[in-house]
């Protein structure tokens, strides 16, 4: 079982906003772009602290991405932030051409991702963003599991010389890492080192997996838990090692089943160590309004779904 650093509830987006302010103090080249939802995504903190280095572009996400590219051309470290659905869905072409193909290390910071944005309904629930970003060459895709990891990720991003998409969330969620927990892009964190099966989770599903592991441990099942905070570049070594040592894989994510973390892991397994895998993900459908927790259960991405997936995969595991 995981020894918890703390049981506070704090929002990942707050970690983002606070990290930006720290970066603002540390580096005069850090600039932030806003597309009107600054209070929601918490860039309001940076805007108040550094009004000269905050640029409003209005509700214009395509313009925001290309403007960030122009700031990067002129040597600035640009953070562009809005809700996940609008950060990815609308400016795909701008991200592909002005950032990825042009290799400009702009940071796209998407809040309110996944189904837990809840009452706003399907239009605002970005469940395709990992797939859309992952398929673009040169893009990095990362998603933190809690407040502290978000902070670390944002602060590390200014030394990461590639365009990066960082996906986080609206709700207050359990803080279960601390300031000392390592966070290195492209390197999975092994939270629990079990032997029967490996759960590879990202974002809020890492916490769900922590809860699932407690249940499974009670039933005598030894679970290895990897926090795969970076989906691209993916930590292939950790996946291959887990497949060889535990022989069964479950992936868990707040995203469509197609093209997300599960797909990325399956690509690795198929090419190196074919291993039974079960997917905890949204099953090719749109969400709806409701509370985050209710939706996680209804759409099959809560702790009980991870427990069930572990049992399914164990039944398929080679004896």
């Amino acid at each position, binding site marked *: 079982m995981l020894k918890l650093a703390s049981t506070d509830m704090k929002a990942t987006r707050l970690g983002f906003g606070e990290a930006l302010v720290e970066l603002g103090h540390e580096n005069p080249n850090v*600039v932030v772009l806003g597309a009107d939802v600054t209070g929601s995504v918490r860039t309001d903190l940076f805007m108040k602290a550094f009004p*000269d*280095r905050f*640029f*409003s*572009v*209005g509700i*214009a996400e*395509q*313009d925001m*991405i*290309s*403007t*960030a*590219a*122009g*700031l*990067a*051309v*002129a*040597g*600035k470290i*640009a953070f562009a932030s809005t809700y996940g659905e609008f950060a990815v869905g609308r400016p795909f*072409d*701008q991200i*592909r*051409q*002005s950032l990825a*193909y*042009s*290799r*400009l290390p702009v940071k796209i910071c998407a809040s309110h991702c996944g189904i837990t944005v809840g009452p706003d309904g399907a239009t605002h629930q970005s469940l395709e963003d990992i797939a859309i970003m992952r398929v673009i060459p040169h893009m990095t895709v990362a998603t933190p599991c809690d407040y502290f990891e978000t902070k670390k990720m944002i602060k590390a991003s200014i030394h990461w010389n590639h365009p990066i998409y960082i996906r986080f969330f609206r709700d207050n969620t359990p803080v279960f890492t601390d300031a000392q927990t390592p966070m290195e892009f492209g390197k999975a964190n092994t939270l629990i080192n079990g032997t029967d099966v490996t759960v590879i989770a990202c974002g809020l599903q890492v916490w769900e997996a922590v809860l699932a592991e407690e249940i499974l441990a009670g039933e005598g099942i030894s679970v290895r838990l990897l926090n795969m905070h970076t989906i691209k570049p993916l930590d292939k070594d950790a996946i291959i090692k887990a497949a060889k040592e535990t022989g069964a894989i479950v992936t868990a994510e707040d995203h469509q089943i197609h093209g997300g973390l599960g797909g990325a892991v399956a690509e690795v397994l198929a090419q190196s160590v074919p291993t039974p895998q079960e997917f905890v993900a949204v099953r090719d459908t749109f969400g709806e309004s409701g509370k985050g927790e209710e939706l996680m259960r209804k759409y099959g991405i809560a702790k009980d779904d991870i427990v069930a997936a572990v049992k399914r995969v164990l039944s398929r595991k080679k004896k």
Partner: protein
Amino acid sequence: MTSSELKPIARQLRRDIMKMLMISKSGHSGGPLGLSDIFAALYFKILKLDPKNPGWSERDYFFLSAGHLCPVWYATLARRGFFPTSKLSTLRQINSNLQGHPAPSYTHGVPGIEIASGALGQGLSVAVGCALAVTLDKKPNSVYCLLGDGELNEGQVWEAMMTAGHHKLANLIAIVDRNHCQIDNRTDKVMEIEPLADKWRSFNWNVIECDGNNIDDFLAAVDKAKVRNGKPTVIIAQTIMGKGVSFMEDDYKWHGVPPNEEQGKKALSELAPTEMGDFVTFDWEK
């Protein structure tokens, strides 16, 4: 450099464009020919630049938003010394740096190009970002962005116009290549964009109109645009697509096609050779 010195450069750019396209057998003829006067003026007179140090921090920034116009840009960059003119014969060919649409040198493009373009409508936003950075740093650099008139159909351009006006980016100069042609037809047939000057004005821009195929007129327009009065400035440059090649002039059908050998020969016969010399001599010219 005077306009009488710039004119033969523009003519050489036109010869270069025709020869590049005759070799590649693929690419855009009309727009690049129409812009040769503006590119000669920009790169041999107006822009602060150093071909040996393309990333010079004091440079003026230039963004070509309508990337398909790159044959004239490649010819200009080569003639200005950013890379050897011999490379011009590799346009659109495999393993060449001269991509069908421009890419920066740190991907697989050429020096002097800051960012990729080709998918339309993104360049003005990029230029706005660059102008914001220059303003923040209190630097004197000017930022230029060239857009096609058909490209103004793209909604993002209007987002960027709004942003530039909102931030009062006086160091930003947009140039619209107003040749009234786009790939399908004349611009008023595909999508009416007039009254164009009024539209830019209503987005809080200064508007200067000029003849983009008259170098003196264009230089005067840029001089006016460089007087910073708290607003961005657009130069609406009336140009003729295919300018310099009689059978291509003002015909939208020359937007995206190269000349065949016979048409190329005829085009070159209308563009007198210059002292700069061509980058390649075809067998039939010997």
